[in-house]
């Protein structure tokens, strides 16, 4: 290493005065709130407005809001008219789902440990701190459940929540003990378990009689499970070299993307019976809602996946062919895993849309989902004509907000885990 030639002029410069510390509350205030005079004015005006809105919001939450209507109808909002004696089935189902999610989370941690792709925060973290971190990450879920539980008057929901947390923790402990090659088995368990849970839950009450947020969640899960494979096929079809397949896919995608979902749902509700044999019993409203939402969302998924496929360099396919992989194996082993990884946020965004759109399905099909309960509750003789719509709709919005925010936050986390855009 050479040293730089010393310059006499440089040596006579006095040492620089110590800079003021850049961290500290005063400095933070100056950088974030009072950069200049104009900025200060903006801060004061906006601060007053925000403070007023916060004051009104908090007052509404604790003082002026009349939440009695929610407290009385809480069960209707959550599980609708599900038979009261059979509610334990829902608790068991929720605990099973939580346990499964716990197992998958624990298994994922083990996979990352085995493959050496652990995240820095995961290494040697004490159990209690890890649990706290999870709760902090899922704060919308925690705060939302706390708000809901604050209105509970019976013991059942408390037992359910306790069961869910316990099952989740147990699952999380079991997960790392599974053999490292259980991915396929876990997927199979999910599919079989989904069917089994449906049978278990629909034993006392047919699915077509479900209502409340439970109906929204069921419609969303069914739609998500079905629309993804269909969308994948359509995306591959649109990029196919076979003209018939390609043009049929394009026609399907463009037609379904050009039409409002509500119109499709109305078609399924009003027009579809004319196109089915009159002798058969018509499919139930719930089935028709699922079909319409699946067909609609699949077109959007197809376009998202196509974007992912197009973002993949040609060299990947060519390299796979050079290694002697067949076209099918190239697609499923090389192309799709990379293409899908690139579009996870967009796909989850579409799933979130689907969850929100279940309200449309219920509205078009005259089903009583959470929004339907919100409307019905305000016309109960006890609450009629008191202008309680704000309370009921706000509560339904909270329910959806919890679900959507949790989904989008977890997808962002998954995206970081898979290292999208960092390589």
């Amino acid at each position: 290493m050479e040293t730089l030639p010393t310059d006499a002029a440089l040596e006579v410069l006095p040492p620089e005065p110590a800079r003021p510390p850049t961290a500290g509350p005063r400095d933070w205030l100056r950088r974030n709130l009072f950069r200049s005079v104009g900025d200060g004015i903006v801060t004061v005006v906006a601060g007053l407005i925000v403070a007023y809105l916060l004051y009104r919001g908090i007052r509404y939450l604790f003082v002026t809001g009349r939440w009695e209507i929610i407290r009385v109808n809480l069960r209707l909002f959550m599980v609708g008219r599900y038979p009261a004696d059979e509610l334990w089935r829902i608790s068991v189902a929720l605990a099973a789902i939580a346990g499964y999610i716990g197992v998958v989370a624990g298994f994922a941690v083990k996979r990352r440990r085995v493959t050496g792709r652990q995240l820095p925060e995961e290494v040697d973290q004490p159990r209690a701190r890890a649990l706290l971190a999870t709760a902090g990450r899922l704060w919308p879920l925690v705060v939302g459940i706390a708000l809901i539980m604050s209105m509970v008057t019976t013991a059942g929901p408390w037992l359910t929540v306790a069961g869910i947390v316990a099952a989740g923790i147990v699952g999380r402990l079991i997960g790392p003990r599974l053999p490292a090659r259980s991915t396929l088995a876990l997927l199979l368990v999910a599919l079989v378990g989904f069917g089994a849970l449906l049978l278990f839950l629909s034993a006392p009450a047919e699915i077509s009689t479900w209502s409340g947020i439970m109906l929204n969640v069921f419609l969303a899960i069914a739609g998500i499970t079905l629309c993804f494979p269909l969308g994948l096929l359509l995306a591959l079809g649109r990029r196919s070299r076979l003209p018939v397949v390609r043009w049929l896919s394009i026609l399907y995608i463009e037609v379904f993307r050009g039409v409002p979902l509500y119109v499709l749902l109305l078609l399924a509700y009003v027009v579809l019976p004319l196109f089915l044999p009159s002798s058969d019993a018509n499919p139930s409203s719930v089935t028709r809602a699922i079909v319409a939402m699946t067909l609609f969302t699949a077109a959007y998924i197809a376009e998202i996946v196509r974007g992912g496929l197009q973002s993949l360099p040609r060299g990947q396919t060519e390299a796979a062919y050079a290694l002697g992989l067949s076209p099918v194996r190239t697609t499923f082993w090389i192309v799709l895993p990379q293409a899908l990884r690139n579009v996870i946020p967009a796909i989850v965004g579409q799933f979130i849309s689907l969850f929100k759109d279940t309200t449309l399905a219920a509205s078009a099909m005259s089903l009583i989902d959470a929004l339907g309960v919100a409307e019905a509750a305000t016309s109960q003789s006890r609450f009629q004509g008191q202008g309680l719509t704000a309370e009921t709709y706000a509560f339904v919005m909270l329910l959806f907000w919890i679900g959507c925010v949790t989904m989008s936050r977890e997808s962002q986390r998954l995206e970081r885990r898979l290292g999208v855009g960092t390589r």
Partner: protein
Amino acid sequence: MSAETTAATSRRPPLWRDVRVLAWAFQLGVAAVVVAVVWYLVRNYIDNTEARGLSRDFTSWLDQPAGFPIPDSDFRQSQPNRDAIIEGFFNTLRLSITGIVLATVLGTVIGVGRLSQNFIIRTSTRAYVEFVRNVPLLALVFLAFSAIVLNAFPAPNDSWELGPIAVFNVRGSSVFWFEGENWKALVVLLAALIVMFVVARWRRAVFDRTGTPARTALWAIPIGLAVAVVVWILLGLGVTAPTRDGTRVTGGIRMTPSYFAALIALVVYTSSHIAEIVRASIQAVPRGQSEAADALALSPFQRLWYVVLPQAMRIGVPPIGNQFLNLTKNSSLALVISFPELTKVTQLATASRAPSVPAYTLLLLIYLAISLALSLIVNIVNRRLAIVER
């Protein structure tokens, strides 16, 4: 040796392993399945309509009297279905275009606010976006209608008045508007736009020739506005402002409660999505671009206007165009609060006399046409903005 391999590979494989044969067989199979499904559905449709004695005529229902009224309009129930559909079409268009304009303005402001250096602006806009984006639009529509417009707005004799600009109350809201024929207003708008376009081209030509700063907006906007005012006066257009007399509001353009509620919900919902796109596209412009602008001693405004925004637009225009399409399609949700837009009118028509399949087919075609027209516009804009590569 080499002759042998050539001979071996040039021989055609047996039919069941020939890729070309397999590809065509597969396509024929797919086509056959699709045709069979369509044929099955059409067969059922014909059987069902014959069994129930329903009309299969796809056009004559348009000329039959509608048999249902549309509230708050000039439409009478003795008029044909055709007029009802046209009324619904213009209601959809009115709601969508107003919504697009307002949502773009609000979304851009909020999206830029999310990048503000001011903590309060940054946090409050983020809270807005994170809340609105994760809530069903239908809930917003119901909330805006029954909890805000019908419940929180004042009684007519107690209206909120914003001088001569607007009057709000529970029976409807009125804002100032032009007075006169619609085509005259369209002429004013077109004249202003054309003049602005011409001035902008001229300024760019001057810049190319002499190098004096173009200052396009500084020239085009005042000249365009001046021309608009002149044409306005020449055509004899007037202005009407709402005034309240007791419980009656006269003048201005009136918005029914359902229209106003649908507009609020659509604008709030779409603006949150547009805000995210605006933020993401500004952030997607590489930092080096801003730093290069600073190195060239551009002012903060010049940096934003000449360097960052043009590149952000290129990224943001296609997804924002998609949001415009979504808003137009989502305007069909206004039917749940009985705003007589296209879908609601079709629903009313089929409930009274119109046969459902032809009516819904027409509805699908109209929505497809709107979507195609909008995506055509977006594509043209996109092509103009796109980078010209080698």
